[in-house]
C-alpha cells in the first residue's frame, strides 16, 4: 500500500542512528518480520529514489510502525530531519520476510550493526510464540550496539561482541557461535555481508537451517526494475533474484556467497 503516516516520535539514539515511529493501522496490521517499507526522503527530485528501510517494530494494537535506521547518505540525512507531526510517504509492507519456526524450536538470532533493526520484530514474535531464543549482537563499538535494552526486556539472553572491545566480547560476533549453533534448530541473521557469510558457513557446517536478510541498491521496490538483484543458487546454477520481492530474506544455503 501507499500511504502517508504521521510521525509520532523521532529521535537520534546514538551516533548516526535514529528511531522513528509513525502511525498506520493498516501497515502495522499487514507487516511481517523481515519486511520493509520504501520511504520517500524529502520532497524534491534530489535524492529521487525511495529508500528501503526494514520494519523494526509493528504494534498492531496501537497502529504504530517503528523504523530504526542509520544515516548513510543524502536520503537518510534528509529523513533524519523530519519532525513529529510530519507525514512520511511510505510504500509497504514489501518483500518476503522471515519464515517463523515451530514454537518448540530453539533459535539463534545473529545481528550485525544496523542489521538488528528487522531482527527485533522477529525476536518479539519468537518470544511471544514461546520459542527458546538466544541472541547475538555484534558491532564496531559499544555505541553501535542497538536495541540491546529492548531485546533484554523481552527476557531474551543477549551476547554482545564489539570490534574494539568496548562492550562484550572483543572480536567478531561469529566467534561466539560455533559451540552454540550445534544446539539450535534454526538461525536467523541480518548484518554486513561478510558476517552473514560466516553465519551461513557455520550453519552449513552444523547442518542448521538459516535465513538471511540481504541488501542491495534498490529502485522500484516491487520487482519491476530488476536493479536490486542478488545471486541465488538453483539446482547448482547461480541466477539473479530480486532482493525486493523474492527477498530480502533468503535461505542461507541458496545464496551464492562467492558472488
Amino acid at each position, binding site marked *: *500500500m*501507499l500511504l502517508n503516516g504521521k510521525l509520532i516520535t523521532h529521535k537520534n539514539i546514538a551516533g548516526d542512528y535514529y528511531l522513528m515511529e509513525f502511525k498506520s493501522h493498516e501497515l502495522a496490521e499487514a507487516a511481517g518480520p523481515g519486511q520493509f517499507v520504501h520511504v*520517500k526522503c524529502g520532497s524534491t*527530485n*534530489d*535524492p*529521487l*529514489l*525511495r529508500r528501503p528501510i526494514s520494519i523494526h517494530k509493528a504494534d498492531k494494537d496501537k497502529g504504530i510502525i517503528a523504523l530504526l535506521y542509520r544515516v548513510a547518505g543524502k536520503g537518510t540525512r534528509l529523513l533524519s530531519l523530519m519532525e513529529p507531526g510530519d507525514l512520511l510517504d511510505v*510504500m509497504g509492507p514489501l518483500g518476503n520476510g522471515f519464515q517463523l519456526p515451530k514454537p518448540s524450536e530453539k533459535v539463534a538470532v545473529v545481528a550485525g550493526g544496523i542489521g538488528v533493526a528487522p531482527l527485533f520484530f522477529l525476536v518479539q514474535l519468537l518470544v511471544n510464540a514461546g520459542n527458546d531464543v538466544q541472541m547475538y549482537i555484534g558491532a564496531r563499538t559499544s555505541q553501535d550496539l542497538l536495541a540491546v535494552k529492548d531485546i533484554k526486556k523481552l527476557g531474551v539472553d543477549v551476547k554482545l561482541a564489539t570490534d574494539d572491545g568496548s562492550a562484550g566480547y572483543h572480536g567478531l560476533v561469529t566467534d561466539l557461535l560455533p559451540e552454540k549453533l550445534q544446539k539450535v534448530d534454526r538461525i536467523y541473521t541480518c548484518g554486513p555481508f561478510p558476517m552473514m557469510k560466516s553465519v551461513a558457513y557455520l550453519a552449513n557446517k552444523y547442518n542448521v537451517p538459516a535465513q538471511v536478510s540481504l541488501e*542491495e*541498491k*534498490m*529502485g*522500484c*521496490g*516491487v*520487482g*519491476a*526494475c*530488476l*536493479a*536490486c*538483484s*542478488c545471486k541465488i543458487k538453483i539446482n547448482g546454477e547461480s*541466477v*539473479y533474484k530480486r532482493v525486493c*520481492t523474492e527477498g530480502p530474506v533468503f535461505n542461507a544455503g541458496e545464496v551464492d556467497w562467492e558472488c
Partner: protein
Amino acid sequence: MLKPNLAVDIGGIVMQNPVTTASGTFGFGREYSEYVSINELGALVVKGTTLYPRQGNAVPRIAETPAGVLNSIGLQNPGVDYLIEHYVPFFKSLQVPVIVNISGETVEEYAAVAEKLDKAGGVAGIEVNISCPNVKKGGMAFGSDPAMAAEVTKAVKSSTTIPVIIKLSPNVTDITKVAEAVAAAGADALSLINTLLGMAIDITTRRPVLGNVMGGLSGPAVKPVALRAVWQVYKAVELPIIGMGGISTAEDALEFILAGAAAVAVGTANFVNPRATIEVKQGIERYLIENGIKNINDLIGAAHGN
C-alpha cells in the same frame, strides 16, 4: 463541460488516453497492480524481451545522480517463450493494448522475437529497442546507425502484422537521421528517448559505481534532452511519437504533447510515485477541461505554431 476526448492512435494502436509506461520501469504490469489499475492506462509497455533468456549485468545496477538514476540492468529477462507462456495470458485479460518491447543481438533475433509474438496473440504493438546502452552486442549499436536501424525495422516489419514502434537513442549526433531512416523502412510509430549513456564514480573506493561501469541515465534530469528530441523528430517525420524521458507530472507530459508527442510514457517516476501514470492521466484531463480543449489531438505539436 463534457469530458474531453483523450484517445489517440499510435500507428494503429488505439489508446483510450495518451499515458503509457516506459519499458523496464513497470515490469510486466502485475508488479504495480496494487497501486495502479492497468485498465485505466492508455497502454501497457512491458519489460524488454529477447529471443533467449538473459541474466543481465553485475550489481550494483543502479546509482542515483542529481534528479536522475543511472541503470545498467542489461536486459535481464526470461526470454520470449517464457513471456508467451506466463505473461501473454495476463495481457489477454487486460482491456488496454499491451506493447512488448523487444531486443536482439542480431537482426535475425529481432525478427524471430517479433514472429513469435505475432503468433502468440494478445500483443497490440511491438516496441523495438535499438537503443539500449547496457548490452555489448546489438542494442544501441543498431540505433546509432541509420542504415542498421532501417535494416532492423524492415526485418521486424516483415515478420509481423502487429504495429511496430521503433525506440530511438539520444546517444547520436542527429536523431532525425535515424528517425527518417526507420520511417522510410516502414516503422508505424516512434518511441523517444531511451536513456542517455552516463556513469558515476565512488570516490571512497575510487572505482565506477555501477558493476557494468556505464549505464543509462533517466529521470527528471534528462527531460530537456528528451523534449528537444521529440521536437526535432516531430518536425522531421510524419510518424506518431510516444514521448518519454523524465516525465513525472501532467505538466511534463503536456510539454511533450505540445512538442509533438501523441502519447507519453512514464518511466523512472513510477519508482518514486507508483501512482504517477494515473496522476499524469488525470492531470492531462484536468488541463484540457480547464482550458476548454475538447480533443487531446488538437494539442499534439501545438507548440510548433502554424
